[in-house]
């Protein structure tokens, strides 16, 4: 990233750090705060109700996943455990303020997390997301879930989610996605003007702030890197980072890869990131549009049934489009479906002669853990450089 973009990014980061305080101020003025988990809860609905949305997606520290162990199985994903763990440790500034948590019930990990929110008396609404997404009956189930959410938000805020308000919200989020999409397109260049560490953080930042302001900040960064380029070497190997997700704060692995001399030129992740390829149409039945875009059109996440072959094809396309030299699979411990998928992808990458590195994290970045992790990443990047 160039120096002027770096300055813009730093300013954005400061605003993100101050976001919980801003939310507190808004709450005192009567604005409702609505947290949500995962990728299936449309922020557009929350925004259109006049509430503030807050993505619950933190990670990268070892203590929060452990805090919930008296109530939860040890072999659950540390990501799911962490989302309630921060609250139990008293180090989540926003969750205690929330008027509602909308929890997507997709897989066992996220559904059990929703149970935990409820058990600990946090105001929770569960939205079921069937894994058999190809069936009309399941599509209808999710669509009805969104309709229930809409009613709940209207009751809670006292604001009617009119088509006009919802359309304006959708357009706002489409703008954010469009700008992130434009930034992402620039990464096809060699060298890319922005690496994965910054791009993923930008995605995270985009969940923290007023929609129009966020879109403006992203546009400024886009303009800066479009004009001035970035700081990576042309010879830096280009890596595709894939797996479940990079949570907010879990940046160790990204840094390791890019500090070792590679650049993360693309991602293929299931959560904690926006999907600029799929904007929500603003004509017709808007709730239906949200349901179709979020549930049907986007590449299905790993946990969806019959998803893997489609996902591998999508990954192959990214490898071609972004001129990828090697793939890093980043997975959380005990994320059983991703573990299965990684075996299939490792096999496919071998067929394609694309170097593949699987990294697994339990958010344990102690000195003892970092040594071997750094060595593996550095060796992988060195091997890419020699190709």
């Amino acid at each position: 990233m160039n120096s002027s973009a770096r300055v813009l990014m730093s300013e954005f980061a400061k605003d993100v750090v101050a976001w919980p305080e801003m939310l507190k101020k808004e709450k005192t003025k009567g604005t409702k705060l609505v947290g949500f988990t995962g990728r299936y809860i449309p922020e557009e609905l929350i925004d259109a109700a006049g509430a503030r949305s807050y993505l619950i997606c933190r990670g990268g520290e070892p203590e929060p996943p452990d805090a919930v162990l008296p109530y939860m199985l040890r072999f659950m994903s540390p990501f799911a455990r962490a989302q309630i763990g921060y609250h139990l440790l008293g180090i989540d500034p926003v969750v205690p303020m929330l008027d509602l948590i909308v929890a997507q019930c997709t897989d066992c990990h996220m559904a059990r997390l929703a149970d935990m929110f409820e058990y600990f008396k946090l105001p929770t609404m569960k939205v079921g997301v069937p894994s058999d997404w190809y069936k009309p009956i399941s599509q209808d189930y999710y669509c009805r879930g969104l309709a229930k959410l809409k009613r709940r938000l209207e009751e809670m805020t006292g604001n009617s989610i009119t088509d006009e308000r919802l359309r304006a919200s959708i357009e706002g989020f489409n703008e954010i996605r469009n700008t992130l999409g434009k930034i992402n397109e620039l990464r096809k260049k060699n060298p890319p003007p922005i690496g994965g560490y910054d791009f993923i953080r930008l995605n995270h930042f985009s969940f923290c702030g007023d929609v129009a302001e966020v879109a403006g900040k992203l546009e400024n960064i886009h303009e800066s890197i479009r004009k001035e380029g970035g700081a990576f070497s042309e010879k830096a190997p280009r890596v595709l980072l894939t797996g479940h997700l990079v949570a907010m704060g879990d940046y160790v692995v990204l840094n390791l890869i890019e500090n070792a001399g590679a650049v993360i030129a693309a991602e293929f992740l299931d959560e904690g990131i926006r999907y600029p390829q799929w904007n929500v149409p603003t004509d017709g039945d808007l709730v239906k549009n949200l349901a179709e875009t979020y549930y049907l059109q986007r590449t299905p996440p790993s946990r969806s049934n019959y998803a893997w072959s489609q996902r591998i094809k999508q990954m192959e396309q990214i490898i071609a489009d972004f001129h990828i030299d090697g793939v890093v699979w980043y997975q959380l411990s005990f994320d059983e479906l991703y573990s299965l998928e990684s075996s299939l992808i490792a096999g496919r990458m071998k067929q394609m002669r694309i170097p593949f590195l699987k990294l697994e994290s339990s958010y344990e970045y102690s000195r003892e853990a970092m040594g071997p992790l750094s060595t593996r990443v550095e060796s992988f990047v060195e091997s890419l450089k020699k190709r």
Partner: protein
Amino acid sequence: MAADVHREFLEFTGFEKNEIPEYLPLWRKASEKLGLSGADISFAMEQWIPRHFDVKLKGVRKMIGAWIREAIDLTRTHEYKEQGMKSVYGILPAHATFYYAFKMADPDNVFVSFPDIHLVYVLNAFFHRLNPYLDGAEKAGMLYGCRHCALNKTRFWSRRSELIASPSVSWLWSFVCDEAAKTDEFIHDSCAPDWKTLVTTMPHDQPLGTREDEVDERVEYLAAQMKDSFESVQQHIGLKVPEEKIKAASDMLWLGYAPKLEELLQLVARDPQPLSGEEVYFFAEPLQIPFNTGIETMEKALDILIGEVKERVAKGEGILPKGAPKLMSILTPAANPWIVKMFEECGVGVPFPEGLMPSKKELQPSRFEDPYMAAAESWLKYSMTVNVGYKCEIICEKIETYGVDGMLLGFLDFDRWLGSDHRLLSKMVEEKTGVPAFYIEGDIWEDRDYSPEALRTRIETVASVVKMRKS
């Protein structure tokens, strides 16, 4: 080793003399396919089974024979496929009724099985030889470190190693964990493109404490899912199953077999406890798992066992002293038979498998005439499939009904759904009933990580606490 260990094994497991000429060659071939050597069979017959099962009882030996009969059948799926037979596989938990209905609709041309559970029970509970399957699956991509389910590993490896053929369709009831359905996808994508799967599923999204069977919208959704899948399976196998066959299958299980099982459970509840919970569990499973060879062999074994246990009760004989505490487990870790035995050695019985004992509500007639609505409603009364708040309510009722001295949770550490609420449940149950609830991390299906040495101290401690609470 015995001169003809295969023959002796069949005799030992209650095969009738007139059946042996037919079954001996089949068993020789099947045991070889299963990876069981003569030494393995000898070990099972002379040491493992007598150590863990009450083989003095003819009913128990015949029960083992019924499972062996089914295992033999399972090793013949390639042969059946070549003969043009249609096959439907499934997994636990499911309504076995539907699978029995397929079988009843065309007994000679339809094969039904839940292959993984049959293999796990037969290989681990009776031979302690499941490990090669698990090791094979781990080397082929279901990695050890991720704590995948042994059932899923076994299903994958049994297909990958060509022990079983791909079915006409695998109808998966993916209502509990996510991994089951995705394992089928893994099988398809990694080694068996002809492995077809139909998934019936529903999100875990009910508020804690919701009585899910009373939520009509949920019952309707589930009924529609069941109907859709049941009809799709019929299309896959080219067979129309009349609704009366569903009723016949249901009657066979719930009016024929279940009352006998209930009688056995009532006998086991007597003091002193006349029979181990280990055996009870194997008799309860045909209500959950379809037997392609039919339920009759198991039912005959159950009839014999009930007679034998009644005799013990009449004589006041028990496997534990009178007054010994009794625990209820969510599911008995029956595939690792030493666990229940270890409790019993410590003077505590584990006779009640909560997950296989009907609640009062489950015994009530359905609100619905439609078979799918009735099936959906009954599924949503079942403690294993509902939200943890409702599950707690059902468990507490059974604790009171059976007067148990403690609740045993755990042994499902691999299951991100069924196992992931046990720590929470142990707190909820204890708070609500005052009955001590114990969580033991372990694996119900395999014992590579939780060996007798590793669990002995924990089991001794639980036994000690429950005995002190009772005294």
